[in-house]
């Protein structure tokens, strides 16, 4: 089928000088020349080396723990166990910096005391003079376990009589959406389509494993240099260590990738404890294996859609059930589940909707944030369901979506009115048009398939968290600009965007701006780099702070030129009269005039997201998010029907980003985010058997190489309708969300049969073809998720 791009609504975006330009990022050359220093690159004089002793058992009672031999090893300076740290618990609550109430029972012990609940759970900390000694000491820790019954499947965990991971039961969170009258909706449906989809555990696989260095200073402050997405964890660390909040100082570094995996506390708590107990600098760096063992995973989900539709494809009602595996500790599971629940019905108008979701504790690795945060898993299900609906009705997949797409002014699953542009059809038709005609198959055994997926994804945090960000912007006397902002830069260009925004507002070049970031004590707190919130939150904070400085400058210049402030502008490091640009001054002179007059040259701005109240848990109706990003991803695949191998041939992502602050960086997000989605679809899976990870390193946990991916064509749409600075929306997470379901749909198109479980391995392709042909299925690999056929 040939698709033609739907014409875009007319939008006039103002021409800007810095914003909207694909400028070289401020951090680019430092990184490409190897100059940038990452957290693992820091060392300190007289530094100790730390290791973490971890559980090998997924569910056991610790019968005996004896660290005396480890302590006695020459060179070992400190060994800590739970006995040394009463009450040390890891508080990784979602509200973070905003002071909201924590959920009861959400704290994981820093070190396990009597019971271990997952393989990899920390039990003891060792600090030694050398890494070699620390590693030797690990081998000298004596431990005896009494195995306890474990539960390794979220469905099993919800059954009566299942081993209980935490009292009173394994339900860690439940959410429900009740909207309209589902019964009535199904009553008017012509057809009801029901399917169940599954997604696996996923590792973030950032190339930089977790690392950091901590030391105490002359004020008894514990300083921690660490790669983290959340410098505000200093509060949780202070509580766990037992010191006042002002005695923990996080000096965050540029991250070697985060993707949600450095959102929870990682090494910093261990570093703080060891630095405090030894009063010496301590370094801790995870190996890749320890990284995979120690940090969170993306939640596996089992999602069942039951959708009532009219013959023309219009959805009359939907009933969706979701089960996620929360692993051994809570972390952000309730919120990931909430995001999934709200995104469950996708970017479609469903007036009669019922969603029931539950997250179950198991003795599997714990799960928490990962780019997409539940909404990515939801999309894998709802977009495959849309294609299945189209198939049942004999309609084109685009046609079915078009009759259901949300429009501006419509209400989403929680009844929140969508106020920004909703260019779903515009994005989908562009992605499909760019995909073009199907590539001819090279042989009979190879089938070509095309597929696409649409999505909605929130950017900015849940509004009942009362999210804030702060930024300080100042003009130096030579006309250069300084930003101070606590934002952690994960590599996506967070700090660069802030610099481009300040440069725009203050009329300087990008080279004239320097940013100091990611410091819990020295830079204004900007909140977490999560939830696609930094451009929206800190971007606005910088925009307004720079705006205040601009106002102050123009006011002073207005006196000088005897022109009203709005008759003046700032550009190229000068202030000038708009109607007579010859009349101008360098910013340095203007700054000097302001300084001489005691006028402010700097501003600290606190940006607040909309604040709402929590929703009624009986139906979750109300406003939840600041806004949403919309778009589509389309792919073409070649499937070898005899070997089951899938090759990606084409990939196109089209997203309305509101306004691209730096289009090159947006392309990078679309290509990079979708690469993670393509890996999700085709090869990535943390295989967990009875609580033990069978993909312990990057030799087994496969992420795409340069040979696996076509270059994703990035199509950037700019509606200018977002709530970020200059009308920007967020693109960090949205870029990933539609890629995996697009692949699943393309493979289903190629094969004529759907594989409902990611990843789409060669084994599963052949099994699906067998099912379709009525042949006996190829035996599933022993490692594959046990499918007991029960429903969510």
């Amino acid at each position, binding site marked *: 089928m040939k698709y033609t791009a739907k014409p875009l609504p007319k939008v006039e975006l103002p021409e800007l000088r810095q914003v909207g330009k694909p400028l070289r990022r401020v951090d680019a050359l430092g990184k490409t020349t190897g100059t940038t220093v990452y957290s693992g690159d820091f060392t300190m004089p007289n530094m100790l080396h730390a290791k973490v002793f971890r559980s090998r058992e997924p569910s056991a009672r610790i019968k005996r723990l004896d660290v005396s031999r480890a302590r006695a090893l020459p060179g070992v300076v400190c060994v800590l166990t739970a006995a040394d740290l009463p009450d040390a618990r890891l508080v990784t609550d979602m509200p973070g910096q905003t002071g909201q109430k924590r959920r009861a029972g959400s704290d994981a012990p820093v070190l396990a005391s009597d019971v271990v609940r997952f393989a990899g759970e920390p039990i003891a900390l060792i600090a030694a003079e050398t890494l070699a000694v620390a590693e030797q000491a690990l081998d000298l820790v004596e431990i005896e376990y009494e195995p306890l019954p474990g539960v390794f499947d979220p469905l099993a965990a919800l059954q009566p009589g299942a081993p209980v991971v935490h009292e009173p039961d394994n339900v860690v969170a439940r959410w429900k959406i009740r909207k309209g009258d589902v019964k009535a909706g199904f009553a008017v449906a012509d057809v009801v389509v029901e399917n169940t989809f599954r997604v696996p555990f996923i590792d973030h696989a950032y190339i930089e494993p977790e690392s950091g260095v901590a030391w105490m200073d002359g004020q008894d402050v514990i300083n921690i240099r660490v790669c983290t997405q959340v410098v505000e964890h200093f509060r949780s660390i202070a509580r766990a260590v037992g010191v006042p909040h002002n005695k923990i100082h996080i000096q965050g570094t540029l991250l070697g990738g985060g993707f949600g995996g450095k959102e929870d506390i990682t090494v910093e708590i261990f570093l703080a404890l060891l630095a405090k107990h030894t009063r010496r600098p301590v370094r801790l760096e995870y190996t890749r294996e320890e990284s995979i063992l120690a940090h969170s995973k993306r939640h596996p989900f089992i999602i069942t859609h039951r959708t009532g539709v009219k013959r023309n494809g219009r959805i009359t009602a939907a009933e969706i059930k979701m089960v996620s595996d929360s692993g051994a500790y809570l972390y952000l599971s309730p919120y990931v589940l909430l995001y999934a629940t709200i995104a469950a019905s996708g970017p479609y108008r469903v007036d009669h909707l019922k969603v029931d979701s539950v997250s179950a504790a198991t003795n599997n690795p714990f799960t928490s944030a990962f780019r997409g945060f539940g909404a990515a898993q939801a999309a894998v299900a709802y977009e495959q369901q849309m294609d299945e609906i189209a198939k049942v009705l004999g309609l084109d997949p685009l046609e079915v979506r078009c009759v259901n797409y949300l429009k501006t002014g419509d209400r989403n699953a929680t009844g929140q009115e969508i106020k920004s542009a909703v260019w779903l059809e515009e994005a989908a038709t562009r992605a499909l048009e760019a995909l073009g005609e199907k590539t001819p198959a090279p042989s009979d055994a190879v089938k070509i398939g095309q597929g696409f997926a649409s999505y909605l994804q929130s950017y900015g945090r849940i509004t009942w968290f009362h999210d804030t960000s702060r930024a300080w912007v100042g003009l130096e006397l030579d006309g250069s600009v300084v930003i101070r902002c606590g934002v952690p830069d994960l590599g996506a260009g967070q700090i660069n965007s802030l610099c481009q925004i300040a440069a725009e507002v203050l009329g300087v070049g990008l080279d004239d701006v320097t940013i100091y970031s990611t410091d819990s004590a020295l830079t204004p707190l900007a909140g977490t780099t999560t939830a696609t919130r930094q451009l929206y939150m800190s971007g606005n904070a910088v925009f307004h702070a720079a705006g205040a400085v601009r106002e102050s400058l123009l006011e002073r210049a207005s006196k000088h030129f005897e022109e009203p402030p709005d008759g003046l502008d700032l550009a190229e490091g000068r202030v000038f009269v708009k109607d007579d640009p010859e009349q101008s001054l360098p910013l340095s002179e203007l700054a000097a005039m302001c300084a001489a007059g005691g006028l402010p040259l700097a501003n600290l701005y606190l940006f607040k997201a909309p604040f709402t109240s929590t929703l009624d848990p009986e139906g979750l109706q109300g406003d939840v998010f600041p806004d949403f990003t919309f778009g589509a991803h389309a792919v073409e695949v070649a499937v070898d029907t*005899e070997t089951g191998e899938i090759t990606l041939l084409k990939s196109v992502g089209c997203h309305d980003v509101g306004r691209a602050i730096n289009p090159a960086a947006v392309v990078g997000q679309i290509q990079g985010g979708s690469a993670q989605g393509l890996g999700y679809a085709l090869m990535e899976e943390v295989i967990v058997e009875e609580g033990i990870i*069978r993909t312990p390193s990057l030799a087994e946990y496969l992420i795409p190489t340069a040979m696996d991916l076509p270059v994703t064509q990035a199509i950037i749409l700019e509606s200018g309708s977002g709530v970020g600075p200059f009308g920007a929306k967020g693109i960090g997470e949205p870029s990933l969300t539609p890629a995996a379901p697009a692949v699943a749909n393309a493979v289903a198109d190629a094969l004529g049969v759907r594989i409902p479980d990611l990843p789409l391995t060669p*084994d599963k392709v052949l099994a699906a073809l067998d099912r379709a042909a009525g042949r006996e299925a190829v035996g599933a690999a022993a490692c594959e998720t046990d499918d007991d056929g029960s429903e969510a």
Partner: protein
Amino acid sequence: MLPEFNLLTPQTLAEALDMLAESAPDAVPLAGGTNLIVDLRDRRQCPAVLVNVAELAELRGIRQENGHVVMGGGTTIAEMLNDPLIAQHAPVLQDAARIFANPLVRHRATVAGNLVYGSPAANTPPPLLVLDAEVELASQAGVRRVPLDDFLVGVRETACRPAELLTAVRWPTPAQHSAAAFRKVGLRKSDAIAVLNVAVRVTQRADGVCEQTRIALGSVAPRVIRARAAEESLLGQPLTETAIAEAARLAAEATRCISDIRGSADYRRRVTEVLVRRLLTQVAGEVK
């Protein structure tokens, strides 16, 4: 960190063999290290002594000798990939080398290391088996030649004795009417351990009748195996579709697959048949 060991760096082959003999069985040769160092790190091997043979001139070089191609055991996969002699006489080996791990590993990994490690999923044994390769094993006692087919024993098990060094691989220069092919299935397009891999070589007379056939199967048994019944079924026959299908079926029957994280036993067996059929079809076309 790596466990403790002593590292000896001989200047000559003779010296290396002395060092290996002196410390046997606790000494192992170290060349590219792409398997060994990983094993050391994971504590899968903890030898007391490593003998660094990476720089030994005697283990390098690819040459023709009495109707044979002789390749030093220290030849890296990258060297193999760029060698004109291999390109001329054993392109099938380059097909395997091209998707061997990744380019960084290929610059260190050696053919001897790949063979001695005894992995059923290794890339070079299937093409070398279909080339009728022999390995040269040197020790203080002298040099012995062992057919590769006898050298491979089981999972990480070979006929290499303690204090022996695999110094060279050699195979008869293939006949004019011979064609070979290799195919690997992995879970990604590069740097993937084989779910299975297959090499075939066929020598045909001018009338298309098959004079000699070799079929080698990787990752479908405890060692890389020859599918002899399948090979024999083609002898004296033209490579018709039926004959090829039968050989492919027999090849699949020769497998003893297991299920692991990369694929199920049934998958491996079934795709073995597919790959053997495809490769035989491909070479049948090429020879003609």
